[in-house]
């Protein structure tokens, strides 16, 4: 609105006000809407503020009573922990040495910088669970992204069980759930912010992995890794293409064929399965796209928006109608990747809309809503950065980076809001940006990486250095917001190494006679063609090997006791130091651990894989192995963009630990962070925690 227009409006208003013979008490719903809304907010604010003010002295007194002992012992008024998932100490040191990380350098000079011993295995869900509980996996029950159901041998999500409502009412074509879906956290033990809460210390916890479903405690928490998308998966993109034979499922996504007629494309957005329909059908939303050069207008039933080739849309709210007036709300980003003869469009996994979450993704539920009102829609999916879309070459390197940094910007705003509002307690925020970009761009650090064969090696060669420098800048901006009495920890759960060669443990077990396949041989996913009645061992997940144990697995044949011990010893001996003949006889596996060696004193040791594989640098479980495919070859080149990893021998991938205070010893471990946080804020350290405080003096 121009200044002239504004002046005109004010002039007209003034004329009406001063010349109107009879002022109407009411000039219609428009004025009424404004008046009512405004009045409602003012009245509600007044009462909430008044109520808060009135009860504040009581709350203050109660909190002070609970905190008075810990306040006396606390050496920090507030503790801020920033997790940079996967930040590698060697890369950080290298850039610090070159003077490219001034803020990290200052922090190290002020306090300390050390390598942080990670969990075994060195996987994010395991490591972050150890971080928050101060325990080894035998006490928190997370050993991998995936576990397995010993009755079906199928993989299951290790951190949470998400199932439909147990009872339904069948009416016609509908099966109406009579109750909430069952969502259960499988991580055990107690995060340290719950301990702080018990002592009256308030925490804000943002996107720490393995916090879904959110637990109740004295503070605010937004769940991170393992929050599903609207389909219930850990991230399923959709790709709409006019090319023939585009239809079908692909890893991490769905390909949908659409018809392009002149410059119009019509199709249906694929949504979540209809949870109230008895038919096995997906919900969908029709769309029509009008193309004009590199621009497009997307028309949905309730909205339309513009797209430009190669640029993401903002988050678009999608309402899927399930029937019976039930709608399921999600958000997604759209990007057109081709607009010439053919048409291609990428749609991100449909995230749960934080403004109207289908189930709780925060504690309290209102926290997700609060952030949504404050920042607009934001990524809620646990693994929000769509690595599969880049792996499957649905989007390119630049589109992936754009997506990751869009998510990162949202996370930064959440953290800065928490820093502004929570000035007396704990603030924890984990950024996945560092992990995802290193996974997908590590190939540029290895000029011989198989994924770079016949590809441009220069365009994104600096992606990782740029990432690290951005993180340094973030640390600088956080430090500017810290005050007296604040302590600061920057940490990562593990480091990173190159992943050039894949090892298929199942293929190795098969070729060495520990696994037997049915007729047809190497077919199917998720070990579907395994003859369980003659199989002694199998691998599921990224590092675990299980024995087909009698009495535990549905078709177990390995007897507990001597046979078990002998079989384990045999496999460990053969796999430890396994050489890769296709790669100059390099060692592919450093060592394999018997679970009883590394997981001691925990009630959940029985849920651990029987053996854990520690791969050498450059190696990891192959893509086929991760998907339960048995192949003729044990080793294969990794030609995917996902080219860096940390699922190796944990000794090779420590994380980083920067602190604003001096440490009392070298070689800190990730399980030491929780006790350190408790000690800084003055509470005692519970007996179940295995870590030790790192505070000097």
């Amino acid at each position: 609105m121009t200044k002239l227009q504004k002046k005109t409006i004010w002039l007209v208003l003034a004329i009406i006000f001063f010349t109107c013979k009879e002022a109407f008490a009411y000039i219609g719903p428009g004025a009424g809407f404004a008046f009512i809304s405004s009045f409602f907010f003012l009245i509600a604010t007044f009462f909430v503020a008044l109520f808060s003010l009135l009860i504040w002295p009581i709350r203050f007194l109660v909190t002070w009573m609970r905190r008075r002992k810990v306040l006396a012992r606390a050496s920090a008024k507030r503790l801020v922990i920033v997790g940079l998932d996967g930040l590698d100490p060697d890369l950080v040191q290298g850039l610090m040495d070159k003077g490219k990380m001034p803020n990290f350098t200052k922090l190290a000079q002020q306090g300390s910088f050390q390598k942080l011993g990670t969990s075994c295995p060195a996987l994010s869900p395991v490591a972050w669970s150890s971080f928050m509980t101060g325990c080894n996996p035998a006490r928190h029950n997370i050993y991998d992204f995936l576990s397995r159901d010993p009755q079906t041998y199928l993989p299951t999500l290790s951190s949470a069980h998400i199932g439909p409502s147990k009872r339904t009412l069948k009416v016609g074509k509908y099966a109406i759930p009579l109750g909430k879906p069952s969502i259960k956290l499988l991580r055990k033990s107690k995060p340290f912010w719950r301990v702080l809460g018990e002592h009256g210390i308030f925490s804000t916890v943002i996107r720490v992995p393995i916090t879904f479903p959110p637990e109740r405690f004295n503070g605010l928490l937004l769940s991170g890794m393992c929050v599903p998308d609207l389909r219930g998966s850990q991230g399923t993109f959709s790709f709409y293409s006019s090319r023939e034979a585009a239809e079908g499922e692909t890893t991490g996504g769905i390909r949908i064929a659409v018809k392009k007629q002149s410059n119009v494309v019509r199709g249906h957005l694929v949504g979540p399965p209809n949870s109230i329909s008895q038919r096995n059908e997906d919900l969908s939303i029709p769309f029509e796209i009008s193309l004009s050069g590199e621009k497009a207008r997307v028309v949905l039933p309730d909205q339309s928006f513009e797209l430009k080739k190669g640029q993401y849309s903002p988050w678009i709210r999608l309402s899927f109608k399930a029937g019976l007036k039930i709608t399921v709300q999600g958000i997604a980003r759209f990007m057109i990747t081709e607009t010439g003869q053919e048409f291609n469009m990428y749609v991100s996994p449909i995230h749960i809309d934080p403004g109207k979450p289908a189930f709780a993704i925060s504690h309290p539920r209102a926290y997700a809503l609060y952030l949504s009102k404050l920042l607009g829609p934001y990524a809620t999916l646990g693994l929000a950065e769509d690595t599969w879309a880049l792996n499957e070459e649905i989007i390119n390197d630049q589109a992936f980076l754009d997506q990751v940094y869009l998510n990162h910007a949202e996370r930064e705003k959440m953290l800065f809001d928490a820093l502004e509002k929570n000035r007396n307690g704990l603030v924890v925020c984990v950024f996945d940006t560092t992990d995802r970009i290193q996974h997908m761009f590590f190939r540029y650090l290895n000029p011989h990486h198989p994924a770079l064969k016949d590809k441009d090696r220069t365009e994104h060669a600096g992606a990782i250095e740029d990432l690290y420098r951005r993180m340094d800048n973030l640390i600088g901006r956080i430090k500017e917001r810290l005050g007296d009495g604040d302590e600061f920890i920057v940490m990562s759960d593990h480091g990173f190494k190159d992943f050039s060669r894949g090892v298929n443990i199942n293929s190795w077990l098969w070729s060495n006679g520990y696994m037997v396949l049915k007729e047809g041989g190497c077919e199917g996913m998720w070990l579907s063609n395994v003859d369980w009645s003659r199989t002694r061992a199998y691998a599921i997940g990224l590092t675990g090997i299980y024995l087909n144990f009698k009495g535990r697995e549905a078709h177990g044949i390995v007897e507990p006791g001597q046979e078990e011990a002998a079989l384990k010893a045999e496999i460990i001996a053969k796999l430890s130091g396994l050489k890769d003949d296709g790669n100059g006889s390099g060692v592919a596996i450093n060592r394999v651990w018997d679970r009883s060696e590394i997981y001691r004193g925990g009630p959940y040791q029985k849920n651990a894989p029987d053996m854990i594989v520690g791969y050498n640098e450059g190696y990891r479980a192959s893509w086929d192995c991760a998907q339960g495919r048995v192949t003729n070859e044990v080793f294969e080149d990794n030609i995917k963009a996902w080219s860096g990893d940390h699922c190796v021998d944990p000794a090779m991938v420590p994380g980083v630990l920067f602190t604003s205070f001096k440490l009392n010893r070298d070689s800190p471990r990730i399980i030491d962070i929780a006790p350190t946080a408790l000690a800084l804020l003055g509470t005692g350290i519970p007996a179940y925690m295995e870590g030790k405080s790192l505070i000097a003096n």
Partner: protein
Amino acid sequence: MTTLSNSIAFVFDLFMWSFNGLHPIWSMTVISALTGVLMLIIYKYTSNQAEIRKVKDWIKANFLAIILYKDSLKVLFSSTGHIFRANLRYMRLNLVPLLFMIVPVGLLIVQMNFWYGYKPFEPGESILVKATLANVGDLMKAEVSLVVPEGVEIQTPPLRIPNNSEVNWRLGTKQKGHYEIKIHVGGQEMTKTLVVSDRMERLSLLRHASGFWDGLLYPGERVIPSSSLVRSIEVHYQPVFMGVLGWDVHWIIVYFVLSIFFGLALKGVFRVHI
């Protein structure tokens, strides 16, 4: 303006005719629903929907912040301040659609007031008629008379108030009907309608000479020519209240509640952020 107002009156009369004999709440409900929809549409296209949504989200975020960070006085005060400031901004954003709504809703309310605001005289009731004259010299000596049709009687001689240039009569009604009373001044004759009825009808309170606001607010009868010695003729109908759930409520309150209700109920259908 008078022509416009009269045209609207004609359409409105037709509309109200379809509710003839029904309780006024029925026609009021339909009018409220229709205006609710109309105003929603006007609001949608004349307001900055994106900004309104943003401001409301900001208000809600700060409101939630007070609840979520209930132990922090700093958050309490800063969020309350943000809410008050955002409310002012919200009100400002509403001014533009308000401007666009003033005219149609103002015209509508004028019409509604003639139907819902007053009741016709009943047989046996007394009526006060007031004529305002132009400069006729000495009012006390001026030749002013009133002629009433059968069914209406003059109960008092004219009461002249020179300071206001007014002449008043008290009339009595004997039977139902639509009447025309005639005022004679200095050889000129000017008429005014008068309704005696037990039903809801459109009533003209004032017949006036030309004038912007009078033309807008009292469109029921032809304008008195500017050459006339009579400036206006006013009939004092009794205000009436609407019976709703056993309560007597002013019609504008009923309209306020119903139109807001329909507006809020239908905002989702029309995808309007209010």
